[in-house]
């Protein structure tokens, strides 16, 4: 027996969740392109056949672009009062229609946000988020999830995985207790089918062997490759900001004589001032050093620290890069160099 849900019932599920005060995050058409957005109604849920992946990743719903983490006010007699926003006070979230690559980014982010300090802002939201993913029936020209250990119907990070059948409905695979609870709570919208039907999953052969990447990186910090690659990198933060797994942030205080707010803001290692010290020294003062850092961090340092690369192969960095920096291409080159 296979649990199934129709598209119409998926829309109803979105509405039911909204009605109970849950925030529904789903791919939605916004200004002519599909983005993950908080739905105002289920009808805004974009049919998954109409896009490869939403333009940006899911991370902003767990790790916002800018987030107040502490508010402070100076009172009479020098007394300081502080308060911290509590993400547990925010409504629960359901992602309805994550792509498997985006779902897979969550276990990767979990590691850095619980490494030496458990980031309460991230985890309180994470606890309150249920992820329903939709497997990919088609891959885009910049996709390479299968090269980094994932795939169009990867289950990593998902609580429920939907796979589209030839009759337009979705087979429902419940993966976690959270996912089971969601399906149970709305069981009227799900049906049981005797057969699993024919399911279309994108065919995406791996572009390079992941196993060849780190060994090459281990020895090529001073390699000639970086120079040529970085010549065209503009040094903007687009790749870092659209990437599902990039997580660097800057802490800033914005205030005046009365008080202020401490914020956690997205930051990018590609920015020229990213590693500038208070002394004025900048250990990564050249763009080639900064681009090398991006690749090293994702495919060597993160692996050494957490046992997994910090990349899900979504290809967004390339799709949205103003100068078409092709990370898949770079990795293909590295894999070939390693062989030579």
């Amino acid at each position, binding site marked *: 027996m296979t649990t199934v849900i129709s598209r119409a019932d998926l829309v109803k599920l979105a509405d039911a969740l909204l009605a109970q005060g849950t925030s529904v995050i789903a791919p939605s058409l916004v*200004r002519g392109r599909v983005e993950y957005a908080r739905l105002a109604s289920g009808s805004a849920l974009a049919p998954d056949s109409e896009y490869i992946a939403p*333009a940006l990743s899911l991370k902003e719903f767990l790790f916002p672009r800018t987030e107040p983490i502490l508010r402070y006010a100076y009172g009479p007699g020098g007394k300081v009062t502080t308060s911290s926003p509590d993400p547990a006070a925010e409504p629960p979230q359901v992602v309805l229609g994550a792509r498997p690559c985006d779902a897979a980014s969550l276990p990767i982010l979990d590691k850095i946000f619980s490494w030496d300090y458990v980031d309460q802002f991230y985890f309180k939201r994470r606890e309150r988020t249920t992820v329903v993913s939709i497997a990919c029936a088609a891959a885009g020209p910049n996709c390479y999830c299968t090269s980094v250990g994932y795939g169009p119907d990867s289950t990593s990070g998902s609580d429920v995985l939907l796979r589209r059948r030839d009759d337009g409905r979705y087979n429902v695979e419940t993966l976690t207790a959270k996912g089971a609870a969601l399906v149970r709570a709305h069981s009227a919208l799900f049906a049981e089918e005797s057969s699993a039907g024919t399911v279309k999953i994108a065919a995406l052969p791996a572009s390079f062997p992941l196993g060849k990447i780190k060994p090459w990186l281990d020895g090529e910090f001073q390699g000639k490759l970086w120079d040529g690659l970085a010549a065209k990198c*503009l040094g*903007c933060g687009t790749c870092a900001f659209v990437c599902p797994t990039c997580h660097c942030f800057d802490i800033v205080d914005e205030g005046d004589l009365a008080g202020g707010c401490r914020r956690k803001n997205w930051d990018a290692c590609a920015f020229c001032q990213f590693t500038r010290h208070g002394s004025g020294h900048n250990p990564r003062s050249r763009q080639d050093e900064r681009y090398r850092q991006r690749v090293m961090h994702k495919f060597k340092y993160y692996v050494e620290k957490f046992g997994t690369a910090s990349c899900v192969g979504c290809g967004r960095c390339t799709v*949205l890069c103003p100068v*078409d920096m092709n990370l898949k291409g770079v990795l293909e080159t590295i894999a070939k160099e390693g062989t030579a």
Partner: protein
Amino acid sequence: MADRQDEMRKLAAGLLERGEVSAVIGYGPGSRPDRTTPLVVTTPAQCAELVWNEHCTNNLAVYLTRAEVQQHAKVALIGKGCDVKSLAGLIQEGQVERDRVVVIGMACDGMAGSMAPLCRHCDVHTPPFHDHLVGVATAANGDPAAFEKEEIARIEALTPAERWAEWQAEFARCIRCYACRQACPLCYCKTCIVEKNQPQWIPTSAHDLGNFAWNIMRALHLAGRCVGCGACDRACPQGIRLSLLNRKLAETVAAQFNYRPGYDAAAKPAMRIFDPKDSDELFR
């Protein structure tokens, strides 16, 4: 376009062979058939990788102020008209010396994709200056002032509250990636105003206030300098309509000070000079 590609490659290779330049900044094939990518070549053999087609949208003049490029005594730039206009600005502002750049001007009948609407109003299908010219433009010159004219007029016809709401919605999309700044040849400041934190004039946070301050201050710093190449607009990963800001100020500069940047590298930039007879209308 194919014959222009061959001629461009030959020219580039010749310049490198004869040692007239030590690098050529051009375009190479992209990760998809509908994209190209900037490519810096340093040997004649590498020139075979250079391409010229309707996807050569990037403004390559942005690389002329990079340290890695400036280390070369002389470079060649594959320049569309719009890119050469930016170069005029860089020369005017003393950032690039004219005799250190060999301009391989490309006659351009317009790019495809999101750049096409801009190209329909282009008046520099033949670059305004060049050391070599590849091809003959067949597209008729348009009026750059007409680009976005209707949209700007539509916005100006809104009430202040409506205008505010529209721009707030636009700026809410900003993620402060600074792709706009990095793609712009005229945003060459080693330390951008937003990177100054003693004091922090422009909040770095991507909230309404920070995004408003960033976007209007960048537009203001480009007033009278922006040549309307559209690189910022195309670079923005969030599709923010930056051209509507920059073009509006360009029209103010044109109307008030009779100046349009990019056509004459010897001209004095309007915001650098003044006319004692400038209008006093604004002043009580």
